[in-house]
């Protein structure tokens, strides 16, 4: 947690052709505002403002950046550009759309389409998990269309979690916040550290970052699915690697959801990245019930169980 909080731009502030309406969220790297353009259309504006490097005091528009932080601030800006570049290339109904990108107040701004709705996180909190299977399948199947587009552009999202999955009022999901795709500053004492959300980040996020791949985003999808059922994330992957206390969804929610869905979740949440679905396509087929999940151990376990039951039934 940053020790100092940055002051957001005040409501009503005119930022080029946008007028700030209110702050939507405030993170360690950036602030997101709701604003309206000259045609009074709502947009979401993300401001690059890492609080460890640039401090904006109340009443100022310009942040003050210490001389020694300037290079790192600029370096981080490069990563913000990466996010802009990544998103600019993606035009998909289930991926947030970038509308504009500009420079002002000694920093840079990313303007995105503003979507009405709420995050999956809010949906989960409202229902304390226990979401309907049909809703879950529909939302995630659409969401995976978006994620497939991301991966086919040689990008990884790396911060998929219910808070970054936005559900529009018409029920369709949008993948938001591509900020993690740019967190690259770990070496040489850079002050911006890679960000991950405990519970949703894969084991590769913590160590062995050279193993990051589509399967890492898939782990996070699995954890998000789990949260839809349980109301909370599974045990964090770094702790699981020390002592795995993850109770399989198959066991935990038996009878409440279809076995096929539960096995799919367990499949995504395998610690060994090779044991997970290797592509979004593979996962999608399972969610659409075109295929069965194939968590190797689990499958044989279930197969064993099934044959045991069959044997018992025959007696």
């Amino acid at each position: 947690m940053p020790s100092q909080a940055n002051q957001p731009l005040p409501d009503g502030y005119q930022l080029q052709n946008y007028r700030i309406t209110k702050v939507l969220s405030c993170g360690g790297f950036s602030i997101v505002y709701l604003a309206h353009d000259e045609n009074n259309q709502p947009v979401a504006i993300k401001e690059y403002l890492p609080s460890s490097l640039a401090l904006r005091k109340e009443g100022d528009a310009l942040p003050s950046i210490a001389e020694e932080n300037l290079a790192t601030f600029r370096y981080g800006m490069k990563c913000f550009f990466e996010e802009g570049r990544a998103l600019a290339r993606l035009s998909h109904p289930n991926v947030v759309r970038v509308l504009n990108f500009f420079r002002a107040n000694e920093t840079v701004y990313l303007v995105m389409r503003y979507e009405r709705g709420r995050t999956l996180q809010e949906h989960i909190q409202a229902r304390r998990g226990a979401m309907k299977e049909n809703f879950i399948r529909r939302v995630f199947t659409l969401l995976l269309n978006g994620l497939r587009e991301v991966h086919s552009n040689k990008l990884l999202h790396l911060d998929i979690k219910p808070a970054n999955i936005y559900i529009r009022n018409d029920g369709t999901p949008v993948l938001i916040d591509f900020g993690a795709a740019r967190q690259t500053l770990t070496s040489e004492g850079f002050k911006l550290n890679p960000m991950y959300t405990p519970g949703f980040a894969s084991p590769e996020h913590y160590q062995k970052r050279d193993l990051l791949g589509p399967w890492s985003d898939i782990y996070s999808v699995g954890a998000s699915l789990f949260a839809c059922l349980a109301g909370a994330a599974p045990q964090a992957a770094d702790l699981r690697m020390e002592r795995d206390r993850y109770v399989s969804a198959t066991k935990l929610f038996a009878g409440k959801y279809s076995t096929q869905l539960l096995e799919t979740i367990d499949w995504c949440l395998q610690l060994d990245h090779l044991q997970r679905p290797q592509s979004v396509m593979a996962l999608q087929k399972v969610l659409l019930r075109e295929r069965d999940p194939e968590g190797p151990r689990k499958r044989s376990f279930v197969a064993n169980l099934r044959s045991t039951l069959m044997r018992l039934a025959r007696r």
Partner: protein
Amino acid sequence: MKFSIYQESRQGPRKANQDRVAYCYSRDALCMIVADGMGGHLHGEVAAQIATQFIAEAFQRQAKPQLEDPFRFLFDTIMNAHLAIIDYANERGLLETPRTTVVCCIVQDGLAYWAHVGDSRLYLIRDGRIVVQTKDHSRVQMLVDSGRIREEAVAHHPERNKIFNCLGQMAPPKIDLSRPTALRHGDTLLLCTDGLWSPLSGRLICEALLREDIMSAVPNLLDLAESRAGPDGDNLSVIAMTWAEELLEDGDQWISTVEMDPNAYKTTVVQFGRTSQGGQEGGYLSDEEIERAIAEIRNAIKKHSS
């Protein structure tokens, strides 16, 4: 030290320039770097940029005013540049590591030491002849070595672009080190990417350098290579350095380092096809680069919005 030096990088007919070149020198040592980011791979120019910048910065830190052990420097720094590229890809979650060739040459105490990975070359040209030249780490070079094809056939061979050794690859790169080579007055060291050597023969290069000094010969060679390669040409980059005995040459084009502060250095980097000069400063993004990045993103937004 006294030398004259010329560097240039051209985009050629390609969509982007993925080559990077830089040289830096202190009072007693000179470092020249040419890297050719690999186009078939994502972010080739990033790999070339990291390699060039990494080596140049290491040189600036260590050459005060000389390197302790030039070969050790070449080996360690190139290997670390390789690791820096891998780190970059890992941290960014790139599905494929960006790759680059590199050829780097150090001159100190009148001796030249060089190392290369891939098919960017170094030539030592003396009295109008190529005395030494690096051997490409490429499939065609292997064919030449085994006598299957002739040297002249390399330029047109369909597999001429396939190299088996580069920075950013999965296995650690094989770093090919030269022998320490004494430089004589008038010797020219020429480091270049395949965009330059591929359309030209060694003889053409030597003849050009016999007729004129590097300041006029090298731009002419670039013109010639560009026109010979035509629309299928590559990025082309070169650093040429002619060595002089301290007292024998005089004129604007000669750089003499005798009066430099032993802790100072000068660096010249060609980025994105333009030359930017830097002293001790090492900022990551200039205002111009920010403006360019923004323009690029805005264009992409325009292009992809329907």
